[in-house]
């Protein structure tokens, strides 16, 4: 059961990830990304991470992608221009970089599987809110606070850029 559901979710994720970058209409791109996030949420749920699955959809599909759509509609972009060809060096470097990232991910997954702290289907209690909350506010407190600081800086920066012209 678990491998079948995983295979379906992974297949859907990959197919719609390709649609996300290949289709000409920006709205279809965003919608495909919604489907990708749903497939990822399904994989999280398979791992027993119900909480992450829900957060994935609430934050990404429910908020961030809606903002994407807002921008697309505000600028009224009906179709995406194809980037000009003639930058073969760029394309080549891009392909090499992608292959490198793929290879290192493969190595990391196959060789460096952690012996402790790894997450397998059913290895955690379901509805993992309490463990995640505890980890965020104890073990990873510094990283957590640092990210909030980063976000505040981003907000302040955005407000500054938006206000500057009115003075």
């Amino acid at each position, binding site marked *: 059961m678990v491998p079948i559901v995983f295979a379906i979710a992974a297949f859907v994720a990959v197919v719609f990830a390709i649609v996300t970058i290949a289709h000409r209409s920006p*709205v279809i791109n965003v*919608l495909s990304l*919604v489907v990708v996030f749903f497939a990822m949420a399904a994989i999280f749920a398979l791992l027993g991470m119900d909480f992450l699955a*829900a*957060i994935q959809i609430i934050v990404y599909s429910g908020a961030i992608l809606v903002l994407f*759509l*807002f921008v697309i*509609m505000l600028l009224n972009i009906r179709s995406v221009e194809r980037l000009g060809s003639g930058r073969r060096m760029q394309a080549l470097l891009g392909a090499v970089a992608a292959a490198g990232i793929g290879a290192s991910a493969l190595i990391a997954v196959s060789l460096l599987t952690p012996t402790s702290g790894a997450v397998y289907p059913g290895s955690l209690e379901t*509805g993992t*809110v309490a463990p995640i909350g505890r980890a965020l506010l104890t073990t990873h407190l510094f990283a957590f606070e640092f990210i909030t600081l980063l976000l505040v800086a981003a907000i302040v920066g955005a407000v500054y850029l938006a206000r500057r012209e009115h003075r």
Partner: protein
Amino acid sequence: MWVELLVIGIKLAVVLAALLTTVPIMVWVERRASALMQDRLGPNRVGPFGLFQPVVDAVKLITKEDLIPANVSRFLFILAPVVALTVALSTFIAVPFGNDSGLELFGHAVRGFIVAPDLNIGILYIFAIASLAVYATVLAGWSSNNKYSLYGGIRASAQTVSYELAMTISVVGVLMASESLHLDQVVAHQSGTWLWVLPRWNVFPQLIGAITFMVAAFAETNRIPFDLPEAEAELVSGYLTEYSSMKYAAFFMGEYVHMTVASALITVLFFGGWTLPWVDLAFAGWLGGLLSIAIFVAKVSFFLFFFVWVRWTLPRFRFDQLMALGWKVMIPLSVLNFLWVGIAMAAGIL
């Protein structure tokens, strides 16, 4: 195994039937109540008190020509109403609508009057699915290839993102108080009374949270005073302008089902769900179970009427007022509620 599936199937059928029946009833209530408030009669020709008016309206909508204008993006134009209705109908499975206290059906435990009793993330599931509702509006606005529809879609996206924050933060206080995401536990936490008089409903210690949640619920369901995406005075009919026949009806039904789910959430989170504070229904078996469902339905009906009441009482906001309210009033107030609950819990008051 099969009995278990059958029990879930029955619960699902009951919930779906109830949600879909709410729509014609609410249409009738809306029209008659608005007439009452404006000193008119309202529809009173079809059936006793005009009760069959929604049936006739449904027949009219089904038999109307289903028009798809030229130059729309067909796929998205058809997808939008499908999303609207599907999303609205799928949120209710995590809402507990009655107290079973160990009842059995066909020799199998009912496991609570809730379609999905094992869904530990409870309220988060509802937020996750409900957060997709805005796609229906945005896609309808975009695909219609009409500037009024587009404005409706843009407004809907900005409005939803703004009010979703306040809505989520105002729920955090409730979840902290009941120490669970599961709505069954949220309801259980609210049973009983303080000093034998005051029900232990969350609305009393968390009045600010209850108010911000209700206001945000109005905004999320696009009801007046927050129906800016539709705003017939400015945008013809907003994102609905190009829709006719059953596609229009799907949006319409979606809106009413959303109202029902929002009312159910207000009931469960802040007004004690299916509990009555002074009575314990657990002893009465199936009768008690059905009574608890009746109590839940009564509370939800009150909030559904409240939606109608507000709609025919208040005027619509201007868009800048809407945004200012969302970011400068609602979010600070909901954070205040969440701080108060945290301090009260730390001090041992709650």
